[in-house]
């Protein structure tokens, strides 16, 4: 197992390198000079050139890339072109927001998807199943920016139950923090829950027709125990795969959700870095997020072994 983990962690290095090449190339291929966004249109060509030199942008792109990779290899992500703040400190300031948002969204999605999927599988082709299927379809189809504004309109503007936007750190107020996260977490969780519940339903229906389930029933075990202990555990392996894959999609959704709810997380950091052509911030943030996705997938792989003892890594 340990060998497996070490090997998987080592594979992060080439993957991270590829991510870096792609991000660096894409943003440098995009037209636009950050000097203009910093200095404004009235800046003289000399001023623009001076700033380009100061930012190291007059070097060939390949040279800039090699320099950047060298820095990253030494654990340095550089500083923002706009204000000189350390990229790592910018990421660490925003990470707790995105992390909390993502973890709560996954937990809420599971809290919705597990009962919905189990009920639908337990009573397939009944009204419960149909309802679950329709809700899942809506959850997967509704764009999250639209859902966000709809929820704000109902729960913040109309009913005044919840704040429409903003963020309070956990360290400042736990209830304040949670209240501000209710709507963004729902927005992120519903599409996840929709997909997860459908996958769980399908898997569970399949598992419930297997022989060992019939044996369990023949032994007189209660239906609850049959489903929860014998059926669900085996149906969860593909569900965990889906949840793991959705971590990447979740980080994409975070970008939009954080912007709408004015949450100071990684999503907003990336969006602003793209618009401002703040190359070090963008490269550093994307690299960091790629690591998070890769680590999440590693955790998923490890979870397989826990869920199904027949799976062994060597």
């Amino acid at each position, binding site marked *: 197992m340990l060998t497996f983990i070490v090997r998987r962690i080592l594979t992060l290095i080439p993957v991270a390198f590829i991510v870096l090449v792609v991000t660096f190339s894409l943003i440098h291929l995009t037209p636009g000079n950050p000097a203009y966004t910093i200095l*404004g249109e*009235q800046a003289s060509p000399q001023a623009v050139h001076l700033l380009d030199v100061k930012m190291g942008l007059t070097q060939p792109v390949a040279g800039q890339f090699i320099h950047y990779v060298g820095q990253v290899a030494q654990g340095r992500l550089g500083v923002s072109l*706009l204000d*000189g703040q350390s990229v790592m400190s910018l990421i660490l300031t925003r990470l707790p927001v995105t992390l909390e948002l993502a973890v709560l969204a996954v937990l809420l999605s599971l809290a919705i998807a597990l009962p919905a999927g189990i009920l639908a599988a337990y009573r397939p082709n009944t009204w419960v199943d149909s309802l679950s299927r329709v809700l899942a379809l809506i959850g997967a189809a509704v764009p999250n920016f639209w859902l966000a504004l709809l929820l704000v309109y109902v729960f913040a503007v109309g009913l005044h139950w919840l704040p*429409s*936007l903003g963020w309070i750190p956990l360290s400042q107020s736990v209830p304040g923090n949670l209240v501000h996260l209710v709507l963004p977490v729902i927005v992120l969780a519903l599409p996840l829950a929709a997909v997860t519940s459908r996958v769980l339903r399908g898997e569970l229906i399949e598992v419930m027709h297997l022989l060992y389930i019939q044996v369990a029933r023949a032994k007189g075990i209660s239906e609850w125990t049959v489903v929860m202990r014998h059926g669900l555990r085996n149906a969860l392996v593909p569900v965990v795969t889906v949840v793991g894959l959705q971590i990447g999609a979740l980080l994409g959704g975070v970008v939009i959700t954080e912007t709408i709810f*004015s949450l*100071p997380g990684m999503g907003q950091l990336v969006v602003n870095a793209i*618009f401002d052509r703040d190359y070090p911030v963008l490269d550093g943030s994307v690299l960091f997020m790629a690591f998070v996705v890769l680590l999440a997938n590693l955790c998923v792989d490890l979870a397989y072994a826990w869920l199904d003892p027949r799976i062994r890594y060597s």
Partner: protein
Amino acid sequence: MVNSRQALSIGAVTLMGVALAGCGTSSAQGTGAATHSGSAVTAAPVRGGTLNVGIDSDFVTLDPAMSSALIDRQAFINIFDPLLKLSPTMQVEPNLVTHWTVANGGTTYTLFLRHGVKFQDGTPFNAQAVIYNWQWEMNPANASPRLSDLSLVTHLAAPNPYEVVITLKAPYSALLSVLTGRTGMISSPAAMKKWGSAYGLHPVGTGPFKFVQWIKNDHMILERNPLYWKKGQPYLNKIVYTPITNPVQEYNALVTGQVNVIDSVPYQDVNSLSSNSSLRYAHNAGLGYADMELNTQAAPLNNVHNREAIDYAINRQALNQLLYFGHAIPAYTQFSPATWAYDPHITVPFSDALAKAQLVKAGNPHGFSFTLLGENDPATVQEMEAIQSELAKVGINMKVEPVDFTTLLTDAINGNYQSDLLGWSGRPDPDQNSYAFDTTGGSFNDPRYSNSQVDSLLLKARETVSQAVRKQYYDEAATIVLHQAPYIFLEYTPVIQAWSPTVQGFQVYPDGLMRFSKTWIK
């Protein structure tokens, strides 16, 4: 980043709001109950309290010497007191400069500074501080966007601690207006030296509020400056700015009480504001405008008749109704109704027949094709599509190409475009809205327009003191520019700001900057 050139690209139904405002002749403000451009002061001001302010984008830098973003000015106006200030009708008034003299045919300005003013770090505000700031900005190595404001300065002197003598290489009638903006916002030299390149994260000025904290994309906090030179002001203890980039969400934040005042209101919500007794708002004509830039050096828009055809073919009234819900004013020049240079008689008619006649003159009786670049936000794309459909009626095939703002700006500056949809946030003096845009080689002259008569008129206007005479020059120049159409001016963009009734002593200014030194919470 929202730059002065972006805000007016209607990008924002709200972003435009940031744009600026104008009061002057065409202001209309109201509430469900009261109708004032500022909240009515019905009782003595109360000290204390926190004002929560919604702004439509985050600040970029808090260093006035390095700022080019429009939104930064919302913070600067409260952290830094400009040397001269603007009245609600955009007149230049004394502030840290108590009076001034102009000599040698307009090439020597002597500024007399207020005594006893201190920076928020306790160091004295004086002539040395002013000169230190300007010398720093004039040093090309520092790449300050303020350099162009000071490009005519040949010498700075401080005969005594409260007197600054500016020598110019040529008369510059807009100088006093320039000193009401970022160039007139003086930083503490001690703080500049202490923080160096990180000064933009630790600003120190002489304004009513001092900087406390800025968490990017989250909030910025200012607190009352106990050293402020106006005794008794400000009234508020604290201001918290929250950037809310989604216009609907910014408005929602005001409705739900999460913020007390917002810098812009979506156009579609303005009418509902008038029937909402729990909110106050002001709706004024702005200093700025939305316009198309046409590259006069690139075919097919290097043909003046093709450009004129576009001018005639666009129905500005219809655009105003469709995109601004009737809250803007059709534009034909760079001088908005909020400035003294505005002339309502300089217009062109909306006429498909005239447009087609111009196409015939151009040798394109069946029209031509070109591409319009614009920012890739929904409101701008909607505006581009509306223009596209207007032009299609006379046979002009306009391709719409949405791009991000940095690309748009870079292409515009480098002349790598046929036409673009940019705007200008506007300034109080007409020189600031025309000279760099229309003169040959001007720093804002993206269309590469060149006309010796316009060059001469705008230079004369710049060097003339009399406002009446300057107005004549600007009228003449504006008429030529309108008919040669390097720009297609579309709408003068309004400033619409709203606040809760507990906010008192707040007044909306034509430049859209929210000044809070006299604001208090009921």
